[in-house]
């Protein structure tokens, strides 16, 4: 049985690129991020090529996704948050495209979002955005985020420490949630896929027992597609909730 971790192996594609002693070679991870970006670009460019009053399919799809994100931002942050909607939109579509392209079978697909480095990078963008927006809008007053209103004075130091730590842990929870979901899903698919081979190769009755894990895998694939969408949504939703703290201070 193939190692279920093998699918996460990062492999160099083409010649090694070494800049200042650092290996920056093009890899399968970079390839699938690039494919995700190109998919999103095709989706957006086709959908906005000839904007019409009565939208066609492609335009309607782009508009639907745009309104999905802007509605979410408006709901969670308010009207001022709409300035950051393009970034949240970009995060959402990029994570979604990476997650979904990782589910494509037979093409040695790779899920960049199953790597903590990538998810942590994306979470860092969110964290930096929250810090920049928070300090730009409120200055040092932004620290009042750690002092929830109406807290009794004697627990205030404790609450402030907890709030501060939870604030600092945000990029990690954001990154680990996405990475863990994608990794776990793909491992599960591979493990159950391995069962198909193992049980299907019982010599006394070939193939028959393989049907059970196979049907499980079909169901799991549907579940993973759902998780791919939900995790992209959760990432964007949490981004807008964190952004709300920066814009509105609770």
């Amino acid at each position, binding site marked *: 049985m193939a190692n279920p971790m093998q699918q996460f192996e990062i492999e160099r594609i083409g010649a090694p690129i070494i800049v200042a002693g650092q290996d920056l070679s093009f890899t399968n991870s970079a390839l699938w991020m690039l494919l995700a970006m190109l998919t*999103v670009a095709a989706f*957006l460019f086709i959908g906005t090529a000839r904007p019409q009053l009565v939208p066609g399919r492609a335009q309607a799809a782009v508009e639907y996704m745009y309104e999905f994100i802007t509605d979410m931002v408006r709901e969670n942050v308010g009207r001022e948050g709409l300035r950051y909607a393009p970034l949240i939109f970009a995060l959402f579509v990029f994570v979604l495209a990476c997650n979904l392209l990782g589910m494509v079978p037979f093409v040695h697909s790779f899920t*960049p979002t199953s790597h903590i480095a990538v998810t942590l990078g994306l979470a860092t963008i969110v964290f930096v955005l929250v810090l920049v927006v928070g300090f730009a809008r409120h200055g040092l007053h932004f620290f009042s985020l750690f002092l929830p209103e109406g807290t009794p004075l004697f627990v205030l130091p404790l609450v402030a420490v907890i709030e501060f730590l939870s604030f600092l842990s945000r990029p990690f929870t954001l990154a680990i949630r996405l990475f863990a979901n994608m990794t776990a899903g793909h491992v599960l698919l591979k493990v159950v896929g391995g069962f198909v081979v193992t049980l299907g190769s019982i010599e006394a009755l070939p193939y028959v027992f393989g049907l059970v894990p196979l049907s499980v895998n079909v169901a799991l694939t549907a579940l993973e597609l759902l998780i791919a969408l939900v995790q992209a949504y959760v990432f964007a939703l949490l981004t807008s909730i964190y952004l709300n703290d920066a814009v509105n201070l609770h």
Partner: protein
Amino acid sequence: MPQFDTSTFIPQLFWLSLIFGVLYFLVVRPTLPKVGRVIDERETRVKGDLDAAEAAKGAADAVRLAYDEGMAAARKTAQAEVATARAAAAKAAEARMAALAAELDGRTDAAMATLATARADARAALAATAADLTADAVRRLAGIDVTAADVDAALAEGVRHG
């Protein structure tokens, strides 16, 4: 797990920042505002159309109201005219009826008068004729030559003794 191989972190982050940067600055930033503009434009257009429809409906309502009012006024005028005409006609008919009745009364009276005269004449003529006939009958039956005056006298006698 390959995920925790820290030697892959920097290349991954390098490609992520490059690709996500391209995605954000060269794909999403130029295209997404277009989507927002189209949606806004559509909203304005739909709102404008709705407003125009509302205005048109208002105008139509006003026209209909004016029409209803005009109809009501015209109906009222017509009814008044009909009532006046009816009253005038009734009055005229009454006058004609009265005139006719008066004329008929006059003609009846005249006819009655003529009738009374005729009756009196007839009665007078009848008496004269009866006297003549009687005198003639007496002459032929009795051979007595009497005159009508005699018959009258005898009749008067007879009537007195009756």
